[in-house]
């Protein structure tokens, strides 16, 4: 599969359209983000990146490299100071806050290192939560949540609360929640950071399955071993893309 990305220092006009895969699901163009922490800190400095539909990309870098900022921008949790971030065709910096929330709910599925499940909701209710905000009918959203939980191997844990589940099971619930709205993009931030190696392997296997089903996956990690599950690795350092490593073997 063709993978395609350009470093931030290249001009817009030189960009090529992705070859084999469909339209890009994510297009970051010249994104810049600075924070004022008693002096301006540049977290991202003109990053451009494109994720074709159905691709599996890992963003790798040490802490402070700007990979979390990039994740926040692509996930619609934050907006760039300059440049643009388009997800599923919508410019996240230009739309209203409400619209951005809706895009987070329907087009982006977050998987966090610390799972971030609602403690008082059961597994099914957690998975159905994005559908609540998307206005699904109760019966429909619970049915969908049950189906996805069964797909990730938790069909027998539907009514358990997060505290009644193991770390690996919690992360599976989180992945199911990310998939519930059938998002354009699954964003996984150190998904194996809080589980042991065996469980982590299981989770990476699940993400591979999700990718195999045609989903676009963006994985953020500092671990080379985890990043190697992806088709390509985007190395990021000091707020800029350092290099892009293609692991798919075909190109």
């Amino acid at each position, binding site marked *: 599969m063709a993978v395609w990305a350009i470093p931030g220092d290249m001009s817009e006009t030189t960009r090529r359209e992705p070859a084999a895969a469909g339209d890009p699901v994510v297009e970051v163009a010249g994104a810049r983000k600075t924070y004022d922490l008693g002096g301006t800190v540049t977290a991202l400095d003109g990053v451009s990146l494109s994720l074709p539909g159905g691709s599996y990309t890992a963003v790798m870098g040490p802490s402070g490299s700007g990979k979390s900022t990039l994740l926040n921008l692509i996930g619609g949790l*934050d907006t760039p100071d300059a440049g643009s971030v388009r997800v599923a065709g919508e410019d996240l910096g230009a739309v209203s806050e409400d619209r951005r929330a809706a895009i987070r709910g329907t087009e982006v599925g*977050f998987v966090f290192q610390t799972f*971030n499940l609602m403690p008082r909701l059961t597994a099914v209710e957690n998975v159905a939560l994005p559908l609540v905000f*998307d206005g699904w009918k109760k019966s429909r959203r619970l049915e969908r949540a049950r189906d996805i939980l069964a797909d990730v191997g938790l069909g027998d844990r539907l009514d358990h609360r997060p505290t009644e589940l193991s770390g690996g099971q919690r992360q599976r619930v989180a992945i199911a929640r990310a998939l519930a709205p059938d998002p354009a993009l699954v964003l996984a931030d150190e998904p194996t950071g809080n589980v042991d190696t065996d469980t982590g392997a299981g989770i990476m296997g699940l993400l591979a399955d999700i990718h195999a089903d045609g989903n676009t996956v963006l994985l953020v990690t500092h671990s080379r071993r985890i990043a190697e599950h992806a088709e390509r690795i985007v190395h990021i350092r000091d707020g800029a893309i350092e290099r892009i490593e293609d692991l798919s073997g075909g190109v």
Partner: protein
Amino acid sequence: MDAAETLRIASRSIRAHRLRSALTVLGMVIGIASVIVFATFGASVQAEVVGGIGDTNANNVFVVPAETDQGGPGDFGATGALLFTQVDVDDLRDIEGVRAVIPQGLVPLSSVTYDNRTIGQNQAIATVPETFTGNYVVAGRGFRSNGSELVINRAAADQLAGNDTVGSTVQLTISGERRNVTVVGIVSGTRGGFSAGFGDDTPQFYLPVDPFYTTRARSPSIGADVKVYPQVTVVADPSRVSDVKRSVETYMTEESDAAQRLPEGVEIRVQTSGDIVGEIEELIGQITRFVTGIAVISLVVGAIGIANITLVSVAERTKEIGIMKAVGARNRDVLQMFLTEAVLLGALGAVVGVPLGLAVGWAATAYAEVGFALATDWLLFSVAMGLFVGAVAGIYPAWRASKVDPIDALRYE
């Protein structure tokens, strides 16, 4: 986000902190209940007092002297001045629409003996037979003029021999002269007096003006000594009460003996039952509003409790807010959720507080021996206040929750 789901999430988070929620609701319950207790009690007292005056005396026009710099209901005969002459009484009878004129005066009793017992009654009210109407007479009948007949109220009858008193003889000493009178009737009140409503507990003796009332003074209009009275009640045709009131006022200020006999600083006040009822209602209403206003303070304290607990709730659930925003919650979804929680606490306060307030209010009226009356407007006010207070108390914490930055919130531990 639909309302049912919002309600479900809000009630779940309230249930997750049972004790804390219960204490917060308790604050609201106390606030709402105390408003209802005082309002209900006030309304009950008002209904009792007004009801006592209102019904059978609705067409009375009271004519009394009053000091000019005083006012208010119950200020009848404050000066005790003997202003109204028999000439005035007779003239008032001739006014169109007047059905009866009832003068009242006091007869001092130096001793009262019944069945060889001395009774502690030191005065009798001298009046005319028209004062007794059928619905006041409990036993026997009213007295007739010029007879040695006595009518007493129930409290006085209780001092003698109850309803058996009718027909028996009582010895009265009036102006040193001993007289035997026959008890011909027992009444629960009189037309023309205010005893119907709240004077029922005081023993009263009623004697006919003729022959027992002997207080006399010179009438300026006829130049002779005639009977003089401290108080006169005009009973009007019920359909012409206001006309009669105006005519009585005109007569009293322009033609009456009383106007000429008026001392400095005293005026003649002409009031209908309606005027008096209005004044009493106003007075009790003011007291009720004042006391209820104090109770509203406890409602405000309850509201502060809700605001406080909602703020704590927002702080505790910062991470949850971040999660919800990450999975698509808009600011207004978050606002709605916390606001619903606060309003729900207020509503719970109302649901428990209203019955509690009514129960305590009922107990208070039972203790004070007045009939129970609902203060419907205050009842609605309390329920509305519960919801409103919850909303107001919750709006700032909920707004803060909605403004939480999801990135910070997700990092929050």
